């Protein structure tokens, strides 16, 4: 069954078209990497899935149910959680309250406080601290943990590795592997393509709001990727999507 399906969605900011008739399917348990340069439309794509923005045209389906008109909190209840770009923690709240607030929908599943602390042992020691005083890596772990607390079946991650040291990025991606082992579907948006492609079993590359390259990561050549990424004369190995 298709877990998530976008059917020819478009999105605009004023006159600027950020997504152009984009279609997408993600199966249960898949790890999809969405890559693309600055301003390619990656975050906009996620906002249509998380419900922060409604597409101007097209529909969004989740488990074959049309969720296009649902608000973000209603989609969390259905099992879609977003770790937003820039983390957006509750800076004045403690780490533990940040995590707890992720559980406000009371969806059942494997994730609770203990499981999150086990996944990220280094934030357990900081549970009483205000989230604002944590390091970047700790904050990112809390942001992922908060999303997990809603026991999502689809987890959306926007630029998880942005501004973090390589060792920390490796730890976070190792944690993502453990999350998918629980059956969670992942959609990973990255500019740091190495990590994302290594983790994913399918990848799409966005350019100016459309899919310009897609396929299993190991079938995509470096050259095709960099051409799709930067948009210079698209080579023969890339196929423009629908």
């Amino acid at each position, binding site marked *: 069954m298709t877990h998530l399906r976008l059917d020819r969605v478009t999105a605009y900011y004023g006159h600027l078209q950020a997504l152009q008739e984009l279609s997408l399917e993600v199966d249960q348990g898949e790890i999809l990497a969405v890559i693309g340069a600055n301003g390619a439309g990656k975050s906009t794509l996620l906002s249509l899935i998380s419900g922060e923005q409604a597409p101007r045209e097209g529909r969004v389906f989740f488990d074959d149910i049309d969720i296009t008109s649902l608000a973000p*909190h209603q989609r969390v209840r259905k099992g879609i959680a977003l770790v937003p770009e820039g983390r957006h923690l509750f800076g*004045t709240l403690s780490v533990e309250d940040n995590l707890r607030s992720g559980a406000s929908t009371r969806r059942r599943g494997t994730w609770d406080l203990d499981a999150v602390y086990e996944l990220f042992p280094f934030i357990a020691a900081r549970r009483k601290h205000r989230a604002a005083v944590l390091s970047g890596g700790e904050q990112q772990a809390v942001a992922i943990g908060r*999303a997990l607390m809603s026991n999502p079946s689809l987890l959306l991650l926007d630029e998880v590795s942005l501004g973090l040291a390589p060792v920390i990025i490796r730890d976070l991606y190792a944690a993502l592997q453990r999350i998918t082992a629980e059956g969670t579907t992942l959609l990973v948006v990255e500019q740091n393509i190495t990590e994302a492609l290594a983790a994913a079993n399918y990848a799409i590359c966005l350019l100016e709001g459309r899919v310009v390259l897609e396929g299993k990561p190991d079938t995509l050549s470096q050259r095709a990727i960099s051409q799709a990424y930067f948009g210079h004369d698209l080579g023969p190995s890339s196929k423009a999507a629908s």
Partner: protein
Amino acid sequence: MIWLNAVVQGLLLGGLYAIFACGLSLMFGVMRLVNLAHGDIGVLAAYFSIILIEHLGGNPLWTFAAVVPVAALVGYFLQRFLFDRALDGGELSPLLVTFGLSIVIENLLQQTFGANDQSLNIGALSYQSWKIATDVYVGRLNVIIFVIAVIVIVGLQLFLSKTRTGLALRATADNRRAASLSGINPKRTRSIATAIALATVAIGGLFLAMRTSFAPTSGSSDLLFAFEAVIIGGLGNLWGTLIGGIALGIAQTVGSQINAADGILIGDLVFLAILAFRPQGLVGLKSEVAR
């Protein structure tokens, strides 16, 4: 002794200001909305109590049980059907809408009850007092108001820190976007905040009406004092609001002791001084460990 007396009376008065202020502060924190009708709603609650006593009789104290739940209910739906729409309309519309509501309430009260002063007569309680030192007497009602104020603030603090709904309110106050991404229903959260705000300001309105006389336009000065208490104490901090209310109360009573007509002016000056020299308020927490 007259100074001690002034400080004690100011402290007690500050409790009342804190009751008025906590709802204003909560609504501002959760939705960045300054409710300019806040004081008028307190006065409206007092008139509601007067109507109840006229028709049903008894000591006004019982009307708390009716007025406060009604205020909470009204708050819930006022948010849903008026304030939420105003919030969607940009920066200015919440101010315009709540200012309009303030005018509507004042005019409605003028029309219905006239401009005369009224008060809620609670019998002997209004003049009984305790002697706590030579020449220092505290009115029983004032002590009761202060104790209730502390209970309201402590209760609200516990509610915010210990319950799921309280967590949702704090999260929404901190980051609205992240709150809805965490599955918190923003409409419901805002409605609960306004329900609490109206319930508390109704308590304040009734106490004020028992303490002094009031008129349809009394709401504006109540709003001003509440606003000053919030700023003096520090935004987004209930203990701060209590401290702010007390500081304002003491400034006013000590000011009146210096010169009978200057009490409120001195309160305003303290408020301005805080705004100028300590804009984060008296209780501006900045510790590593979360509250």
